[in-house]
């Protein structure tokens, strides 16, 4: 009796199922609608352009985080890696020139991500612990390098790269979207991407099938570190300075954005589309609340509530769609 109705609803409710699995767009639409009504400034080209740029930094971090999380892991060190790459990209410019310094920043991110991956994959420790250690250690490294004070860029033409726009879309936002789309393609169309899902979904089945779990995890942590460095470089271009505290608790916002999008913390399920949705929802909320002159602490409360609500909804919906 129950089985038959279950099978029927599975066929007829394709659209509903899609929405259950992609509820973030509902949230984003709702948020946009509310703020458009509440503030006349919200739906202006200028403001949308701002939202995209503001969201893009967390967004680029979230691209790497999504890969790691589909693998069933987590990376808490992205904020610290971002700070280190910012510091290197600005601090090394005098000694080795602008572009070599940028490259050094990128490589530092890739190397630290690789390091996170190797330790996680080979030690058997949970990545939460490994990257928590990395978060603290790398932040220490940043302070050693910068001292207590912010580093300043010497040649201010460096900051002009951040001012490149394609219509209303800044180079930062463009980078985010290009990276997100590229890695969406990686996730859906390459062996590495699909095996990342296989590992997060059923690690024993993946292992029994001979998939090299360690290799995939190391690759994804390396990508995640590199993404953090990319966000760091873009931030250095935008600010022209490297603060030792740059990107502090951004790892939390990143995780929130990814989870809000619908990618599961337990792994095996998610996409860059969801992450784009999550990142944009978060950015719209922040921007909208600021337009309405909401005090900072109220903003935090609202965002926290939204996150819990979204996850609650996700739980309710997924427990309904899974077989009883």
């Amino acid at each position, binding site marked *: *009796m*129950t*089985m*038959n109705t279950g*099978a029927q609803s*599975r066929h007829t409710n394709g659209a509903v199922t899609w929405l259950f699995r992609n509820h973030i767009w509902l949230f984003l639409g709702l948020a946009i609608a509310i703020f458009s009504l509440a503030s006349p400034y919200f739906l202006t080209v200028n403001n949308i352009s701002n939202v995209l740029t503001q969201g893009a930094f967390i967004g680029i971090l979230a691209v790497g985080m999504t890969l790691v999380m589909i693998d069933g892991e987590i990376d808490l060190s992205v904020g610290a890696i971002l700070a280190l790459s910012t510091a290197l990209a600005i601090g090394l410019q005098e000694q080795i020139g602008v572009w070599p310094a940028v490259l050094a920043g990128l490589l530092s991110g890739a190397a630290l991500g690789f390091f996170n991956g190797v330790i996680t994959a080979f030690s058997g420790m949970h990545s939460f612990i490994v990257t928590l250690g990395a978060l603290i250690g790398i932040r220490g490294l940043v302070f050693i390098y910068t001292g207590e004070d912010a580093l300043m860029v010497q040649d201010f033409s460096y900051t002009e790269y951040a001012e490149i726009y394609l219509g209303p879309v800044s180079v930062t936002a463009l980078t985010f979207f290009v990276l997100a789309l590229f890695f969406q393609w990686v996730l859906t*169309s*390459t*062996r*590495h991407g*699909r*095996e990342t*899902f*296989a590992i997060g*979904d*059923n690690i*024993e*089945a*993946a292992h*029994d*099938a*001979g*998939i090299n779990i360690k290799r995939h995890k190391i690759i994804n942590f390396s990508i995640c570190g590199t993404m953090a460095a990319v966000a760091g470089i873009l931030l250095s271009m935008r600010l022209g300075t490297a603060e030792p505290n740059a990107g502090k608790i951004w790892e939390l916002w990143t995780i929130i954005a990814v989870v809000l999008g619908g990618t599961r913390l337990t792994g*095996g*399920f998610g996409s860059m589309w969801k992450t784009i949705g999550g990142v944009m929802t978060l950015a719209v909320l922040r921007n909208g609340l600021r337009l309405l002159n909401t005090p900072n602490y109220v903003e935090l409360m609202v965002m926290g509530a939204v996150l819990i609500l979204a996850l609650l909804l996700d739980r309710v919906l997924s427990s309904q769609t899974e077989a*009883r």
Partner: protein
Amino acid sequence: MSNQTPILTVNEVTKTFPGVVALNEVSFDIRPGEVHALVGENGAGKSTLMKVLAGLYKADAGEIIHQGKPVDIASPLDARHQGILLIHQELSLSPELSVAENIFLGAWPTNRFGVLRKSKLNKDAQSALTALGADFGPSVRLGTLSIAKQQMVEIARANAFEANVVIFDEPTASLTDTEKDLLFATIRNLRDRGVGIVYISHKMDEIFDLTDRITVLRDGQVQGTVKTEESDVGQITQMMIGRELDAFFHRAKSTLGSEVLRVEGLMNTRHFRDVSFSVRQGEVLGLYGLVGAGRSELVETIFGVRTMEAGEIYWQGQPTGRLTPRKATDLGMALVPESRKEQGLVLGQGGRANISLPHPNMFSRATVMNVASEMRVFDTYKKQLDIKTTGPEQALSDLSGGNQQKFVLAKWLCADPKLIILDEPTRGIDIGSKSAIHELIAGLAENGLAVIVISSEMPEVLGVSHRILTMSEGRMVGQFSGVEMTEKNLIEAVSHCADDVLTPV
């Protein structure tokens, strides 16, 4: 049935675990194009043998000859490369991946740059599926399929990797009748194409319907291999049993008092339906069935852990309505769960804290724990149950399974229950402690408690019970007492799978 040379021969394979000889010089063979049944009670060694073949365990002694050559099967992947495929009872698939991706997991076709060749993947998967007569395509997400269809996906791997030996472990456990027909058709399809099939099952009707030969295992030893058409249920059952009951079992010598618990028409559609029985003071009621028959779910439902969808529970003659664990405890029921570690004990803590855990009101005043009374109770049970522990604070994780189990009992006994339900009370504990637990069960009944014992071990259930109920696939399928309580009767009761059992309406 073919008479060719075997495709796989198991030659005097022995496998021991600490304290147990799981396989004792087991030999049998599989021919191409035959379905070979492997039967035996729980713990007879079927699973171990199958895991040796699938590369999950390594045999201590003996050899495996595959296609004429002695082989060493190092891992499941290795087994697959050699053409040996195990279809688990619990499917080993990834629900978020597509059907095709699942079939070829670990061996996806790519171009030079690591980009998936989806069209080739889907085409190859389609031909593996078509060969099985599947009615779904390769690109659908696996999680949207029914269990039976997911099982077909796993079987499709046999075609995709050109397996020549496929092992099915209790494949019908979670299938409906129509799904079962589909599975059997699939298995016959494989057989007709020359694959050698090992079929592990408890269900006699399936075995006689499907298989060509039957090998019976008992206590890790092969009792014999027979042709199915020349055998019958009686002969197989006889081969499965025939063990002397151990002398150390203690059956309670108690006089039965009034009825403590009666249930009528109990139902939880997912696990069991229409279950009625009763138990009296001083009685030990055995509940026997195969793993997955719904026994644990039944007692959990009575205790209020699971939802009771229909039926009525009577406690000392009075209807109770739907129970919660708290209400059930207050009435005087105690449920000692199957997995001590997950449900019964806080292993990091000592015996004192564990005993008082479910009874905060007994041992505290205004939420402050009364350590002295906890100590008294601890000492009482340490003596009464002969628990070997260095003291009230020694973490239970340091104790043996048998002593842990005694703490589980102590914790429930100190509330002075009238009915105690023991779910697999001796699983995983050594033989000496087992006998102590059996003695204890008898003692409880002699003191006037009603006891329900769930056990998958036939000698145990036969040894301690006054009366035995058998369950199969969520139904009560028999009741035995006195001289009717024989291994043969129990096996026959749970192996017969009536056609109407759990058919979806």
